[in-house]
């Protein structure tokens, strides 16, 4: 068998993907979206957009509502409040069902089926089935078509699940923690396979993940949810540029007073070392070492301060005028 095609990928893949999104409707648009399980609101008052052609990391602590959001987009759940649109259509419409592929966290496959039978299941249930793509993904993983799915390793299982998802020719691919149970090498292979298919087909991807450091180079869009509410949404670059990480040696316990004019996301004091992640609202004064935060630094700062003021970039915002309608 051939070696899996390891393709370098990065921001350069961006324009090709964006060009593939033909009409103007965003891949996802939530307005006042809320979902309640019995008495607990898993998602609440969510307003955001995910433009087509993006690869979006969906981050947040456990129980933040990530799986709920993905399930709503996949029509596995119905919103309790508000609405969600996938390329302009409700998730329950036939058009939307055909455009969305979902891979659950446990990568469910029918027990007792062989790999070939799993692909046949995909073909039987999807009119636009792309057997060549599905087979290619399986072959690249050196997986036997006659193997029972129960005997596959975690990486092989993920590959078959991905093959099922891509075989559907989705325009929006929803992945719930796709890499969580894989070792680093397999993670790298699966990521490479995923990105190469995404680049080829122009698929929009929304994937929940805890592997922030690894998603850094893959995702160009970010959606952060804490406590069922959207905290951050937008282009990774824009969001990072909107923040500054400040640090200094400081003796005062209550922090330096000259941060009051900025939005302070979180502060941290380790010994005499004080640091703060801020959204500058003007020139930053004072004797600070300052630099733009990395994605991981940013996310950890937000996870530490879940109640901070939300930030949505222009492309992630829904217009207020439409909202009233």
């Amino acid at each position, binding site marked *: 068998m*051939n070696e899996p095609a390891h393709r370098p990928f990065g921001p350069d893949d961006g324009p090709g993907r964006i060009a593939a999104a033909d009409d103007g409707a965003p891949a996802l648009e939530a307005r006042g979206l809320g979902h309640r399980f019995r008495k607990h609101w898993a998602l609440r008052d969510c307003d955001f957009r995910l433009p087509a052609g993006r690869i979006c990391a969906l981050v947040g602590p456990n129980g933040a509502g990530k799986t709920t959001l993905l*399930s709503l987009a*996949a*029509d*596995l759940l*119905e919103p309790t409040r508000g609405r969600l649109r996938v390329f302009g259509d409700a998730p329950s419409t*036939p058009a939307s*069902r*055909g455009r*969305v*592929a*979902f891979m*659950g966290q*446990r990568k*469910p*496959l*029918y*027990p*007792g*089926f*062989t790999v*070939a*039978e799993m*692909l*046949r*299941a*995909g073909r*039987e*249930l*999807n*009119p*636009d089935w792309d*057997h*060549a*793509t599905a*087979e*290619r993904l399986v*072959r690249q993983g050196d997986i036997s*078509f*006659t193997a029972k799915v129960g005997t596959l390793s975690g990486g092989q299982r993920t590959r078959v699940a991905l093959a*099922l998802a891509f075989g*559907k020719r989705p325009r929006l691919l929803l992945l719930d923690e796709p890499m969580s149970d894989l070792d680093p090498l397999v993670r790298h292979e699966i990521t490479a396979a995923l990105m190469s298919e995404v680049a080829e087909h122009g698929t929009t991807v929304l994937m929940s993940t805890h592997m922030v450091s690894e998603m850094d180079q893959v995702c160009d869009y970010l959606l952060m949810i804490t406590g069922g509410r959207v905290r951050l949404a937008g282009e990774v670059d824009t969001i990072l540029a909107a923040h500054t990480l400040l640090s200094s040696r400081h003796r005062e316990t209550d922090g330096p007073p000259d941060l009051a004019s900025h939005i302070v996301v979180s502060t941290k004091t380790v010994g005499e070392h004080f640091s703060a992640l801020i959204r500058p609202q003007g020139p930053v004064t004072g004797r600070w070492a300052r630099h733009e935060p990395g994605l991981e630094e940013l996310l950890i700062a937000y996870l530490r301060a879940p109640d901070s003021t939300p930030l949505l970039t222009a492309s992630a915002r829904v217009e207020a005028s439409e909202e009233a309608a």
Partner: protein
Amino acid sequence: MSATSPLPATVRTRRGPHLSGLTWLIWRQHRSAFWTGLVLLAVFAAFVVTRRSGMVADIDAHNLAGCVYESPEARCEEVNAFRGRFYDVMHYTGLLVSFVPLVIGVFLGGPLLSRELENGTYALSCTQSVSRTRWIAFKLGVPALVTLIGTSAVAALYTWWWQPADTLMKGMYWYESPFNNVGVVPVALSLLALVTGAAIGMVLRRPVAAMAVTCAVAVVGWVGVNVLRPLLWPVREVTVDRITADYFGSPIPLGHLIPNAWPTDLPNKSYSAWNLDSGYLTSSGDHFTSGACGDFTAASAKCLKAHDVVGAWAQYHPASHFWPMQWVMAGLLLAVTAAVTAFAVWWARHRA
């Protein structure tokens, strides 16, 4: 690149019928259960064919056709011995067959949806291009069709076996077997058990729990069905003013054993009537329970006379009620089946 190569050999070679779409998926998912059922059906068919041919040969050899149990004709005296030869195997096979709905409910219905909900493939099934309503329709429909065909075959085989001897087998007309094993009732019972098991599994989301609860519900349902059975058709009542001595020892009707007091025109001699209840009648037309007087003794006869007993009454279903009651029962069961199915579809679309 190998991507353009045709399907691998494993996809091309298929055994069994050529199915497609959801029909293929559902058949493939449950094929071991379906094949097990079909093999058991084949074994049962072979068994019935051999048993029946022996029985029919016996009826011909002893010229028993048209006899009823304890009929006065001399040629029919052999009926007792005939019953001794063939009753047990038919009766116990019937008992076994009456477990078919329970087995279908527990082993096919119980895991049908709960297994997909437990292992997460429910999300896989429901995120393909087919609508969820369509999926649940096939998920219930394909096993229902297999159940319909399989249990119809079982019921037809049992009916076919039983009918040459229906009047020869005392006590084998109205009771659980064969009433629940012939005609449409076993088919309706099986369909109800299937969808009930599936609906329970959908709510509980755990196969083992679903199977246990389905089993319990099936047993309770079975008791309920048998309690309901006498009420399915208006009961016929006879009263007689003459107390005779030709009591044949029919099944004891609810403790009201009436020795020497059987209405003469009650069609119980053929045992094709189902005697539900009977008792004494006073001159004012009231029913009188013999408990106060006891039975069988000279004293009780005196006591009955003292209580103004002048006759007897009996409530029964004649043989002609058998098939109307079958259809009423099947209709009720299918109505409940439709309701449970509607619930399952609603739950699949909005709750699961």
